């Protein structure tokens, strides 16, 4: 079989650098890519976890500078549910499909053991949907609406002491599935000194419990410095507000207290600006990439291994997904055929039984018919006999009658004239 010979001319290490003697023009490649992405639009999914009333919806409103229509929920939910809503935002020519998933009823129950399970299930369900689409034979990945959670904002209540057990438990269960950014909510209830201590305490607790929160990437020179400083400010202490107040000569978003005004976008007052910077302006793309390359791949690997697929076979030979899939398919088909056979057997069995029953019934019917017929015959014969008797009787009677008439006639014959005259007279009279 004539095989194609591909001779790769190896230079130093597979490719040698080449110098250009003029302008070729492929430096427009990133622009081409960016243009295509603009046409397609971007997708970003945020999950907000926090107790009821901690300020999740307000913070999201403030972050994206718009008011999402989110209803206030009560404290009396029986269990934790997730509510997801998708919005389309546009800024200059960039279209963003933003999905915000809120936890409803988190931390409200008396028994909070299962609080984190619905969240984990939800995240897994999104990964599963993507995996299903990727494994399809006829798939359309490039216009698939990606619903995988890219970032999880975990709202810590500002007690000032330490993390609650519920928080630790939830974060521990989520850190391998999603990028977690912890934020301290309602930070205007903590004073500055307390805040520092609180942050240090929180971070040490997270580290000592092995919770992996999202670290801003520091491998790219342009953003590594700012990311490194931001990493030191985690968790961000935020205040959210959509109400505007006049401070100085500008309208700013703020919360008004009798003792002063807390400005949301003032870096001295809270870390809101830092959060917005990090989340949206600097690292949105990296968050998406981490979700896809790390968390999703981990999920995929676990799921496929669970289903029994392996990369290497029993003798450590590489086995492709196809072969395992083929084997499983054969197995499945065998199983299917066996079940079909079973069902067929059962069907035949039932038919036989039914036939037997019907035959029985028929036989009974036949017997009854015979019986009735016999009865009928007997009746008939009886009647025949009776009739015969009756006829005999009638014949006997007729005979007797004839005999008597004869006797009478003879008696009349012995006195004929009298009777004749009488008869004549009688005849004349008639």
């Amino acid at each position, binding site marked *: *079989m004539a095989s*194609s010979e*591909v*001779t*790769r*001319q190896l230079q130093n290490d*597979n*490719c*040698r650098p*080449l110098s*250009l003697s*003029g302008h*070729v*023009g*492929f*430096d427009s*490649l*990133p622009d*081409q890519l960016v243009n*295509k992405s603009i*046409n397609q639009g*971007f997708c970003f*999914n945020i999950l907000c976890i926090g107790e009821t009333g901690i300020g999740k919806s307000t913070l999201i409103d403030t972050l994206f*500078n*718009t008011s*999402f*229509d989110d209803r*206030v929920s009560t404290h009396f*939910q029986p269990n934790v*549910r*997730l*509510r*997801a809503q998708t*919005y*389309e935002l546009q*800024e200059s*020519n960039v279209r*963003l*499909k933003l999905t915000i998933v809120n936890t*409803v009823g988190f931390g409200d129950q008396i028994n909070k053991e299962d609080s984190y399970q619905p969240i984990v299930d939800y995240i897994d369900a999104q990964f599963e*949907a993507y995996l299903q689409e990727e494994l399809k*034979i006829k*798939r359309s990945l490039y216009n698939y*609406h990606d619903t995988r959670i890219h970032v999880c904002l975990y709202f810590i209540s500002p007690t000032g002491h330490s993390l609650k057990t519920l928080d630790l438990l939830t974060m521990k269960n989520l850190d391998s599935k999603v990028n977690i950014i912890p934020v301290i909510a309602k930070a205007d209830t903590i004073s500055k000194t307390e805040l520092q201590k609180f942050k240090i305490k929180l971070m040490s607790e997270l580290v000592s419990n092995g919770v992996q929160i999202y670290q801003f990437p520091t491998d*790219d020179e*342009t953003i590594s410095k700012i990311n490194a400083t931001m990493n030191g400010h985690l968790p961000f202490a935020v205040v959210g507000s959509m109400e505007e107040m006049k401070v100085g000569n500008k309208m700013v978003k703020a919360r008004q207290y009798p003792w002063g005004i807390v400005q949301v976008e003032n870096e001295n007052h809270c870390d809101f600006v830092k959060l917005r910077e990090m989340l*949206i*302006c*600097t*690292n*949105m*793309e990296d968050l998406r*990439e981490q979700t896809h390359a790390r968390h999703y*791949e981990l999920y995929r*690997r676990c799921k496929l291994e669970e289903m029994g697929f392996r990369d290497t076979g029993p003798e450590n030979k590489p086995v*492709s997904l*196809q072969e395992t*899939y*083929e084997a499983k*398919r054969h197995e499945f088909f065998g199983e299917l055929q066996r079940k079909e056979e079973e069902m067929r057997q059962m069907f035949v069995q039932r038919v036989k039984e039914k036939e037997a029953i019907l035959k029985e019934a028929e036989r009974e019917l036949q017997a009854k018919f015979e019986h009735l017929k016999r009865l009928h015959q007997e009746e008939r014969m009886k009647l025949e006999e009776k009739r015969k008797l009756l006829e005999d009787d009638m014949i006997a009677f007729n005979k007797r009658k004839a005999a008597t008439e004869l006797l009478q006639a003879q008696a009349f014959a012995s006195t004929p004239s009298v009777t004749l005259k009488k008869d004549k007279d009688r005849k004349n009279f008639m």
Partner: protein
Amino acid sequence: MEGELVQPAPEETPRDANPANVGLELFGYVGIEAVLDQMRIKTMKTGFEFNLMVVGQSGLGKSTMVNTLFKSKVSRKPTGPGYEERIPKTVQLQSITHVIEEKGVKMKLTVTDTPGFGDQINNENCWDPIIKYINEQYEKYLREEILISRKRKIPDTRVHSCVYFVPPTGHWLRPLDLEFMRRLSKIVNMVPVIAKADTLTLEERAEFKKRVRGLGRESVYPQEDFDDNSDDRILNNKIRDKIPFAVVGADKEHQVNGKRILGRKTKWGIIEVENPAHCEFPLLRDLLIRSHLQDLKDITHNVHYESYRMQRLNESNRLALSPINGLLGKDEVESDL
């Protein structure tokens, strides 16, 4: 905030909630458009890959054309004395990989040459090795993609574009050209060019194109089905009107009007390669590199690769996994793109 007691809302998943997504107004600057810069920085860091294949008979100027396109000695043809270019007995494929950089953008360029194509006396099935090669690259990518633990960035060796060199006979496309283009345009983006176009005058060129356009039109790049919106369609229609491009390749510079220009020097004048009045090389270069490079890669990934994958996964449901045999004879069964 109104403290109304609301009934618990029914649980909604993103897929069936708000089928009409709510479009919202932003009250102020949020910073969403910074994602474009993030994307740009990221892609510049990872670099790009581009795989080009040139197909045509020997002597049509393929290597020179590639050198002119990328303004460097991509394919080195030794021209010393005593060297005879041997025409190989079968079609061979040779791939050379280079890394080129321009203004911070790194590109790994792989050029696959096909010496021996169409050079034998009996050229039947000379396209088979090429089809097999292209499918092998798809297969490699597919295998990487369906691994359990797969690499972060799968190396992409799939052929993104195939430039087919049509000899400038001036009459029609030859049966070999038609066969080849028909078969290959189904699995790879095909860009036909008229080679050595300096042998045709402008009128002859227009005549040739007119005749060629009717016959060899089947789904060459850019395919009409993949125009995204009307702007694309207008742009691509302009390109489609000019296909196939009449190109001239040159890698020597000459002095013209005090400037150094790439061109071919003849006794009757200098043919300037980059002059749109002389030949259509700038159009080819713009199509391949400046404007449609990403599009070529996208169509290869989203369309050609997907159809290969679909076919492969479907047929493995019927027969056990066997080494690739080039999908010979299945061309007729394939659906049109």
